[in-house]
């Protein structure tokens, strides 16, 4: 066994990142953990309650409903945005001036602040003065997102698709352009159909970027707050109250700090678990 001289200087090199992670992740998270096991009535007086809040949240119908809505919403937007994004990416030009035009147009929705997106769609979809709302009603559809759950859902989904499909397009497009031209040429020589080219060359080659796209869209849509909050405020009734809206209502509206903290930890663990399962499952055959 050879003796190596101890050198503790390396700790200084990792220090900045340790401090950064501590302040932006570990400490806030631990604060939440702290709240989640205590009861408070203000005045900085806390009582230890153990896992009581976790039990309460997990058994509450309100949480079940919000979670159900959340999975439904995320499922719908993923089912629309991923295929749509891939389809748009496939239709985009590969060279020439069209590339930059398409890329800029695609990036625009991503550059708009989230609450502005909510406000835009709020006005756009107003049944009496909004372009979308008024047009739909003029065409004979009974559309009013402030009163009908279905209209509200359709509007929230349309808004999310409008806002975020671009991200999928950009990722898928990057994946597509990374495929060497020779593959397509080889497929042409083999006499492969357009569907086979997509199925056996483009899709497998896009697997990694699509995995990333699905993960990002899953996490983001699962945490959606600002846009539906500005658009519908969670209504009509509670029909568009997703997990994060419910969480804010509980923490700030009712000032139930303990249950809200417990709920955020459960919320966080669900996202972590689903993402991990998805990633391990799709990547198990890679290397």
């Amino acid at each position, binding site marked *: 066994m050879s003796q190596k001289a101890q050198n503790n200087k390396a700790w200084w090199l990792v220090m900045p990142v340790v401090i950064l992670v501590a302040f932006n992740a570990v400490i806030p998270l631990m604060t939440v953990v702290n709240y989640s096991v205590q009861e408070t009535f203000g005045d900085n007086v806390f009582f230890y309650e153990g896992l009581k809040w976790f039990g309460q949240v997990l058994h509450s119908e309100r949480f079940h409903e919000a979670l159900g809505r959340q999975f439904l919403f995320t499922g719908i937007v993923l089912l629309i945005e991923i295929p749509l994004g891939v389809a748009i990416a496939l239709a985009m030009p590969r060279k020439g001036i069209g590339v930059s035009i398409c890329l800029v147009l695609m990036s625009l929705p991503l550059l708009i602040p989230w609450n502005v997106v909510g406000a835009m769609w709020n006005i756009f979809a107003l049944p009496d003065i909004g372009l979308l709302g008024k047009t739909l009603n003029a065409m004979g559809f009974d559309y009013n997102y402030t009163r009908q759950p279905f209209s509200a859902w359709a509007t929230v989904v349309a808004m999310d698709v409008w806002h975020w499909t671009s991200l999928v397009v950009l990722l898928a497009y990057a994946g597509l352009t990374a495929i*060497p031209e*020779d593959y397509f040429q080889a497929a*042409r020589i083999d006499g492969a159909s357009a569907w086979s080219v997509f199925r056996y060359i483009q899709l497998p080659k896009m697997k990694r970027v699509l995995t990333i796209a699905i993960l990002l869209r899953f996490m983001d849509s699962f945490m959606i707050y600002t846009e539906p909050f500005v658009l519908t405020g969670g209504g009509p009734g509670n029909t568009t109250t997703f997990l994060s809206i419910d969480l804010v209502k509980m923490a700030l509206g009712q000032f139930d700090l303990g249950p809200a903290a417990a709920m955020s930890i459960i919320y966080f663990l669900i996202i972590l678990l689903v993402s991990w399962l998805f990633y391990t499952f799709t990547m198990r055959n890679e290397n």
Partner: protein
Amino acid sequence: MTLQLKNVSLVRDTETHIYPTSLDLVDGQFNTLLGTTLAGKTTLMRIMAGLERPTQGQVWFDGEDITRVPVQKRNVAMVYQQFINYPNFTVYDNIASPMKLLGKDKKTIDDAIHRVADLLKLTPMLHRMPNELSGGQQQRTALARALVKEARLVLLDEPLANLDYKLREELRDELPKLFRHSGAMVVYATTEPSEALLLGGYSAALFEGKVLQFGPTVDVYSKPDSAESARVFSDPPINLAKVNKAHGQFSLSAGAGWAANGEAHALPDGEYTVGFRPHHLTLTPHGDTSVKVSAEVLLTEISGSESTVHAVVDGHTWISLSHGVHSLDKGQTIDLFIDTRKCLMFDDKDRLVLS
């Protein structure tokens, strides 16, 4: 089997990619397209394959004009510099893919795969995915796909360029054997003159979209019909210099001169371009036919048993290749010897007049 290009040219936008070219490729031999990158090798292959339609001219196969026949109906196979396989198919399914598309039955496919896999040493890898293979094995898989297709025309576009040296040598030896009995017309593109010589067969020297010369590889090498063709077929590049013939004597502007004997004697007096390959410009004389020039060393590269010296002679950079290790300092003045028996002589129209 014959493949003929008749006056084929390709112009895209205003840029000429291929100047009018006629080629009669030879059956049962390797037809090598030799040229630097952008010389037009790949474009020419794409035209042969039918992936690109020539602006003018025709492509004939077995006495039939196939210029307008789309690639799917031509029965061609192509292997690229990049290792192209279906990423989520096993090696077995990859090799099977062209035959499946042709609608062959399972038994035939299975037999063919095992025969080819045996030939290409892929048998232990048949059930692996392409990304689990080494570069050499991936390229073997691509070659296997080309072989089982039993294509009439096989296009190999620098298939060895991305392999390491040892694998390249190994596959280079095997390639002619593999395709000898396939009955296919084989076209092979490379940037390396030595590769063309090793593969034998026939070669076309390409330069900037023009086929300069086509013929048996050895002839193209030893009797390049123009200085450009000689340049394409020489690595390191051939040395070219102006030489003047008068009174039965060649003289270089660098001062050296030698008697024009034999065939050379019959040449009319005047200006010529003399070409001699780096290994005919040496640090030591080769008998009494060598002439001496004085040179200033620019750079010396020693690769094991050979030394390459870049030296300035009368304002031009020449390259000399000698046996043995010679370390020379930059700026040092040395004597170089031209082996005048090995000189190629080109006239003022750049045509070979003496070899």
